[in-house]
């Protein structure tokens, strides 16, 4: 505590913390991946708590908390309350923190049975029956989608925070990014299954730019119409079981995708 207070006196920079819950660490590594901008970030903000970059956890209050990961254990359910208490602004980052992540597949299954199959001593495992986003547990000021998040969106959010303005994070479809990039549509032009017309932009249409369909890493766009897209994919030959799986991946727990996958099977 004393150390943190000294730090605050030395420079009145806003204090940034990066917290991790159930996740793969990929989103917080996006911060380190901002190679060209990292020094500027370190100059503008005091990076006060960041387990991926330092092993020195500090206590105190934070002006901006980036929270990665979903809530999957009783301990995490308590810890997120503590993080919220310590944070002036809390931004949930990534598919885990905003929709429960790939581990939200457990929400469709029996976790106790999974534990029996996977672990030699399932009685050592203390876990919740579901994987849920941060916003299910505490108020969240802003959400950055993606699996992983896009580094330019992270930078934009941090810059917007520092200048006290609203971040420009579009909520429209991936299609708009594809068209701006000048890509030929893989769904129309090749019949490739693509979730782009129902998925929120942010990745810069990464997969379609390489001839692949969108996997929905950024979760549902605003005002999505998953049933109509499913009808189209079915007309192109996609089986019901494949459709169910197609909607049920990194953002399986996002309500619009969850409802659509459930229409095609349990």
């Amino acid at each position, binding site marked *: 505590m004393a150390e943190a207070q000294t730090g605050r006196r030395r420079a009145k920079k806003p204090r940034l913390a990066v917290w991790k819950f159930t996740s793969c660490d990929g989103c917080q590594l996006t911060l380190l991946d901002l190679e060209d*901008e990292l020094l*500027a*970030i370190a*100059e*503008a903000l005091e990076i006060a708590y960041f387990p991926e970059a330092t092993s020195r956890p500090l206590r105190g209050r934070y002006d901006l908390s980036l929270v990665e990961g979903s809530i999957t254990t009783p301990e995490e359910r308590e810890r997120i309350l503590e993080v919220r208490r310590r944070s002036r602004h809390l931004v949930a980052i990534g598919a885990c923190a905003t929709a429960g992540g790939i581990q939200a597949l457990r929400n469709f299954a029996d976790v106790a049975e999974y534990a029996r199959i996977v672990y030699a001593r399932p009685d050592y495992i203390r876990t919740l029956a579901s994987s849920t986003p941060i916003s299910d547990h505490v108020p969240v000021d802003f959400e950055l989608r993606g699996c992983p998040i896009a580094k330019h969106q992270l*930078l*934009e959010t*941090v*810059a917007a925070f*520092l*200048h006290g*303005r609203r971040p*420009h994070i*579009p*909520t*429209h*479809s991936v*299609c*708009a990014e594809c*068209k*701006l*990039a*000048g*890509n*030929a*549509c893989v*769904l*129309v*032009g*090749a*019949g490739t299954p*693509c979730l*782009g*017309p*129902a998925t929120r932009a942010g990745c810069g249409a990464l997969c379609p730019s390489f*001839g692949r369909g969108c996997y929905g890493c950024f979760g549902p*766009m*605003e*005002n*999505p*119409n998953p049933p*109509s*897209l499913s*009808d*189209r994919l079915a007309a192109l030959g996609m089986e019901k079981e494949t459709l169910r799986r197609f909607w049920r991946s990194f953002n399986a727990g996002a309500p619009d995708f969850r409802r659509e996958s459930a229409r095609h099977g349990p």
Partner: protein
Amino acid sequence: MGERDGHLLTVAGLEALLQALTAQGRRLIGPTIRDGAILYEEIEGIADLPRGWTDEQGPGSYRLRRREDDALFGHVVGPHSWKRFLHPPRRELWRARERDGEVELRPAALPEERLALVGVRSCELAAIRIQDRVLLEGPFADPHYRAMRERIFLLAVDCGEPAATCFCTSMGGGPQAREGFDLALTEILLDGERCFFLRTGSAAGAALVAELDPPPADARAKSAAAAVVERARASMGRKMPEADIRDLLLASLDHPRWERIAERCLACTNCTLVCPTCFCSTVEDTNDLLSGETVRSQRWDSCFSAEFSYMNGRAVRAGTASRYRQWMVHKLATWHDQFGSSGCVGCGRCITWCPVGIDITEEVAAFAAGAAVPAEGD
């Protein structure tokens, strides 16, 4: 201008024409194959054209197919339109920074590049004309658009084989380029040899013809060209209903059909972004983390996004039905009031590139058929 007379150009003559345009310091942009589609990209000469290829189009479907001949322009329009170059998807408008307590504003430089657009179709000339009205002739002229537009050379091509999604003739246009071009080609066969009937549409075009000095076209070439255009006119893939569409749509604002369309519509924005006349854009300010230097840039926007109608804390057009209605009623009805013409040129892109294949002609036909349903209020 000698437009009535015309000249005859061989395939080698076309190559010479393209090289003459390059020699003027112009970058050539034309149809070329990339990622399984015919896109408008930089080309160097006829070797980059999709020779011997065609595009099969239908609602929500586009495939390239080998032709049985080696036609250079035996295809129609793809997902790109020329607005990509005249009214680009993204561009910087200005940047600002604070210096000694003063805000210093620096507008982005206007483009100095000279482009030659190769293979511009009649529907696209009509679309450029429409964007001229919006971006040049309104109360606020777009200086970037003007700079690009004033320097551009338009080499048009008449259509020989419309796609199944084409309906330019319903919208008062094509398949023949009639005005607004510098030079126009009709691809023909004379005694089995591929060549072009060349028409001149401007002083810049005439100067190039004088430089290249191709032979004048004889009566046979002219009638072959006329036959190509006539065949295209007779084989339009689609037709817009012949109703007074403006009045029809304005009387149908409460029609239940809008909700039916919204059951299919993905609100994905594709129709607006492939449309050669849709001109809407938004501006975004971003700033540098440390210096605070602010950059304002413009990017294409779409009336299908929530942000587009966001006012006073919420999107005015919250649902897809109202967004589709906004797009279609503006395009086909209120565009007349605003800009003196329809906003649709019948290119069919919105039909082909809609992932679920919503067909604007079919929807208008449904409104026309259901015109008996009385409109309630406004």
